[in-house]
C-alpha cells in the first residue's frame, strides 16, 4: 500500500535531517531554527528563525533548505519569523547530548535561571556566581571562561583546569 504524502509532509521529511552549517552534528530542527513547513497562499512556506541577529549562517541555511527541497522537485518560500525570539531552551536533551559528544558544552537553561546567576539572558550583578560549565571532555566543573566570544556568535571559549583542554560553550540565549 502506498500513502500519498502532501507536499508539506514530504518537505518535512526532506528537511528533518538538514544539519546546521556551522555545527553539523545537530539538525536545524533540533536547534529550533526550522520552525514550520506549511501550505501558504503562494505555495509551500518554510519558516525559519534566526539565532543571533547577525548570524552569518542564515543565508546558507536558506540556500540549504531550497537545495534539499529541489532534490524532490519542490519549491518553497523561506519565511523568516522573529517572534517568539529563538532561545537555546528549545534545544532537546538529545541535541544537548550530541553537542557534548562533539566537544561543545551544551547551554544551561535560560527559562529556569536562578536569580542572580550569570548568563547571556540574565545580566549578573556584582558577586553573582555563574553556574559551572562542565568540560565536555572529562566532565570536570573546574573550568574557566577564556573569552566571552568564540568561533561562532553562539559560543564562548572555555578551558578545563583539570584536563587542560580548551572547549566551546554554547551560550544560553
Amino acid at each position, binding site marked *: 500500500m502506498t500513502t500519498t504524502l502532501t507536499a508539506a509532509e514530504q518537505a518535512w521529511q526532506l528537511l528533518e535531517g538538514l544539519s546546521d552549517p556551522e555545527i553539523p552534528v545537530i539538525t536545524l530542527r533540533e536547534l529550533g531554527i526550522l520552525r514550520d513547513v506549511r501550505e501558504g497562499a503562494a505555495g509551500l512556506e518554510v519558516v525559519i528563525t*534566526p539565532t*543571533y*541577529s*547577525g*548570524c*552569518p549562517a542564515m543565508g546558507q541555511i536558506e540556500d540549504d533548505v531550497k537545495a534539499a527541497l529541489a532534490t524532490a522537485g519542490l519549491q518553497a518560500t523561506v519565511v523568516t519569523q*522573529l*517572534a*517568539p*525570539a*529563538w532561545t537555546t531552551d528549545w534545544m532537546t536533551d538529545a541535541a544537548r547530548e550530541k553537542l557534548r559528544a562533539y566537544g561543545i558544552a551544551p547551554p544551561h537553561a535560560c527559562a529556569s535561571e536562578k536569580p542572580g546567576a*550569570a548568563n*547571556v*539572558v*540574565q*545580566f*549578573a550583578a*556584582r558577586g553573582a556566581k555563574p553556574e559551572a560549565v562542565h568540560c565536555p571532555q572529562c566532565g570536570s566543573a573546574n573550568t574557566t571562561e*577564556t*573569552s*566571552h*566570544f*568564540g568561533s561562532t*556568535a553562539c559560543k564562548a*571559549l572555555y578551558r578545563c583546569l583539570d584536563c587542560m583542554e580548551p572547549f566551546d560553550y554554547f*551560550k544560553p*540565549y
Partner: protein
Amino acid sequence: MNAPVDYLLHLADNALILGQRNAEWCGHGPILEEDIALSNNSLDLIGQARMLYQHAAAQIGKGATEDTLAYFRDVPDFRNYTLCELPHMPLMAATSAGDRDFAMTIVRNFLYSSLMVLVWDQLQNSKDAQLAAIAAKSLKEARYHLRHSRDWLVRLGDGTEVSHAKVQAALDQLLPYTQEFWSTSPQESAALANGTGIDMAALQADWNQIVDEALQEATLQRPAAGGFVPTGKQGIHSEHLGFVLAEMQSLARQHPGATW
C-alpha cells in the same frame, strides 16, 4: 500599528554606526579574543540594524531596501546618537589607525549597552509587533554586550595606573555625549505618542544605577556632564560621521546593485 519610520531609523542607525565603528578593530584587536569579541559585537549590531531597516523599508516602499537605507542616505539623514559615530581615539589626537584606543571602545560600548538593555526591554511592549519582536531578540544581545564591556571596564579601571588613567580619560570624554539619550527628538515624541516608542526620560534613573555601580567597582570617578547636548539623532552630527559613511558606503555607491 507601525512605529514612525524616523524612529526605526534612529534605532537602526545607532546599531549600524556603532557596528561599523567596532568593526574597525577587525584584524587590529589588542588580543585575538578581543578581535573576535568586537567583530561578534559588530555582527549583532549590524544584524539588529538590518532587521530594523527591513521593517522601515517595508513602510517606506518606493523601492527602499535595507541596502538603500544603509548605503544611499547622507549625513543629515542619519538619526544615530553622536556617541556612536565618534572615533576610537582620545580627544581627536589624530586619525591614524595606530591611535585607536581600546579604553574608548570599551567605555562607549558600556555606556551604550547600559542604555540598550533598558530600551529593548521596554520596547518588547511596543504596539508595533515587529519592533517588539526585534526588541526581544536584541535584548539578549545587548545584555551580553553589557556583560562584556562591563567586565573590561572593571578590569581596566581597577587595573594598572596606566589602564586606569586611560579608561578614566575615555569616560571623561564620552560621558557628556550621553546627555543626548535624555533629550527629546521629534521621532521619539511621535513614537511615544502612538504607543510604539518609550519614554526615554523614565529610563534615566535605572541607567544611572547601572553606570554608577560599575564605575564604583571599577574605581572610576563619574565626570560632571553639562553644557553642550549633542544632536545626532536630529541629523546634526559631528564631523566624524561623514568619514564613517564615506568608508562604509563607497563600495555600494561605486558598484550599485553589486552582489557576490
